[in-house]
């Protein structure tokens, strides 16, 4: 727990993102995909925040908005105190040096026809970093992520999954960022390699005080890596807390369902079945009331009509649920 560096580095307020759907001959807007309805959270410097959700939660879109691959429809983003929601041009370029994203699929995020060396050096050149010393810096980056010089000369398809992910991390580190968004960083990796990459990320954070936003649906990884967690459902955050407390005292029915659905690799642990029915949402209609209402086993009338207010239920523990409010 980082106590002395208590400043908030990243703050997201009521982020909304609607994607227009075009149709007809004249390509008019016929509808929207309500990908993100309300994403609000903060991350302290040197901290890891887990952003958890299933399909339709909007978590990946939030990540993309934070690296400015998408513009938010509404809402604000603050980085180190300044409002970066609508920056462009040279300001944007400066921001891109601070915030980087590691995508889920390391093979797809590397240009298949460029060697790792070229990919990394290109980044340095674009930002005019380490002029004249690019190769040596690339070597240093390789070392940082646990790869060797020969890997610089490989093409992405000549590396294993774990090596590729490390190469992607090395490339992201080439801009010397402070804030890394990790979008399912271990989802496409083998189990034995997952731990390697997770440990690498933890190590880098300890050494260089990186701030992480970990986007994933894997609760085990969240528990292992993040200090605090936000649970999202259908584009809205429903619960947030310090990770330990969230896992032990989840208040929101969706969080409870998630936790109970995770298969535990221990046959002696008996779980009470908490199967929720229904499907993950298809966000083509705007949210009315609580987004989880149509699947919640404790649903009440008010849930269908009104958005539940935010309740503080513990130290840094907030929930949005009528059941909790009514208690």
């Amino acid at each position: 727990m980082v106590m002395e560096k208590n400043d908030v580095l990243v703050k997201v307020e009521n982020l909304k993102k609607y994607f227009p759907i075009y149709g007809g001959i004249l390509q008019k807007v016929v509808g929207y995909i309500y990908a993100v309805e309300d994403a609000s959270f903060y991350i302290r410097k040197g901290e890891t925040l887990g952003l958890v959700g299933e399909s339709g939660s909007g978590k990946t879109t939030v990540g993309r908005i934070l690296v400015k691959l998408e513009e938010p429809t509404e809402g604000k983003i603050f980085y180190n105190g300044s409002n970066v929601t609508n920056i462009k041009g040279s300001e944007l370029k400066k921001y891109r040096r601070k915030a980087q994203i590691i995508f889920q699929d390391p093979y797809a995020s590397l240009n298949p026809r460029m060697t790792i060396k070229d990919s990394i050096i290109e980044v340095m050149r674009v930002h005019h970093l380490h002029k004249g010393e690019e190769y040596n810096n690339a070597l240093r980056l390789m070392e940082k992520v646990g790869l060797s010089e020969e890997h610089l000369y490989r093409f992405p398809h000549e590396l294993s999954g774990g090596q590729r992910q490390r190469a992607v991390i090395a490339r992201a580190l080439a801009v010397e960022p402070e804030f890394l968004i990790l979008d399912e960083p271990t989802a496409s990796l083998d189990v034995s390699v997952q731990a390697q990459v997770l440990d690498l990320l933890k190590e880098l954070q300890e050494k260089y005080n990186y701030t992480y936003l970990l986007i994933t649906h894997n609760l085990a990884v969240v528990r292992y890596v993040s200090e605090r967690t936000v649970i999202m459902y259908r584009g809205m955050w429903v619960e947030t807390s310090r990770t330990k407390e969230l896992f032990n005292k989840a208040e929101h029915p969706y969080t409870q369902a998630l936790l109970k659905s995770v298969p535990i690799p221990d046959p002696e642990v008996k779980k009470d079945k908490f199967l929720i029915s229904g499907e993950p949402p298809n966000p083509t209609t705007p949210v009315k009331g609580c987004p989880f209402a149509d699947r919640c086993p404790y649903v009440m009338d008010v849930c269908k009509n009104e958005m539940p207010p935010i309740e503080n239920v513990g130290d840094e523990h907030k929930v949005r649920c009528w059941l909790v409010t009514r208690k």
Partner: protein
Amino acid sequence: MSEKVLEVKNLRVEFYTYRGIVKALNGVNLDLNKGEILGLAGETGSGKSVTGLSILRLLPQNARVVEGEIIFKGRDLLKIPEKEYNLLRGKEINAIFQDPHTYLNPVFTIGEQFRDILLSKKDSENNSSKVDDKKIEEIMVSALKDVKMPAVDRVLKMYPHELSGGMKQRVMLAIAFSLQPSLIIADEPTTALDVTIQAQVLEIMKELQRKYNTSIILITHDLGVIAETCQKVAVMYAGRIVEYGKVSDVFKNPLHPYTKGLMEALPRADVDVKVKSIPGTVPDLVSPPSGCAFHPRCPYAMEICKRQAPKPSYVKERVVECHLYS
């Protein structure tokens, strides 16, 4: 009543690629009893999918079964002619795959495809060209009800893209169980699904298995899924089964260093653990390491491990391939 449904003996499969010969399976032995769910666990390159494909006789063109037998109800599946095997497909042996897109044809409705499949099976059974339409309708509806599909009549008229991932997998389950086969090979059936949907689908699968007493081989890399679904587990590495036994035993007390390593490398959602990764990467199957394929990564490696591949040792009801136990 443990009557053996499937026996795989010393299965060796090779792939001919431009890089060389890939020894995908290097002597696989396993047994499956009636009504049992066996988990086949492993990572990339372990050979778990190849094992499943061999049993289903769905290996790609460049694969060769070099040695081995797959005995199913007294017959060697590898030796019987294709026509004879096709009589078994769907009715005795069926499969569920990870990606419903490869299974469901996007231009036909669910009902049309299901009917086609059943028609092709029914024909061969009665050996007559006249097929009972009503009976097929009954089977389809009953199968979809089995998997708790809502609005069965509507679903039958829908196209695959109109269904969510979870519903498509349920359709797969429905089709797979519809003719009550004795053996189902499930290859990563829930890997692509959301956690809450995965739980639903696994629950349905377990229910159907109980109902029809089907024997299932569940192939997955997710040890959590195996722990919650299977009775027995076979851990594969580099084309061999390195540990085999009851799920409760293996998980509580893993014997093989690789199994141990896997368990220790898993972060857990229910408890705080110290995660330890296995150093190195999975071996290149074109030129695997000498002796025991795991020795370069094994913390207990001895001299003999580099020279000689270990033979299976029997520790109570467990089978382990490791020099530590021979």
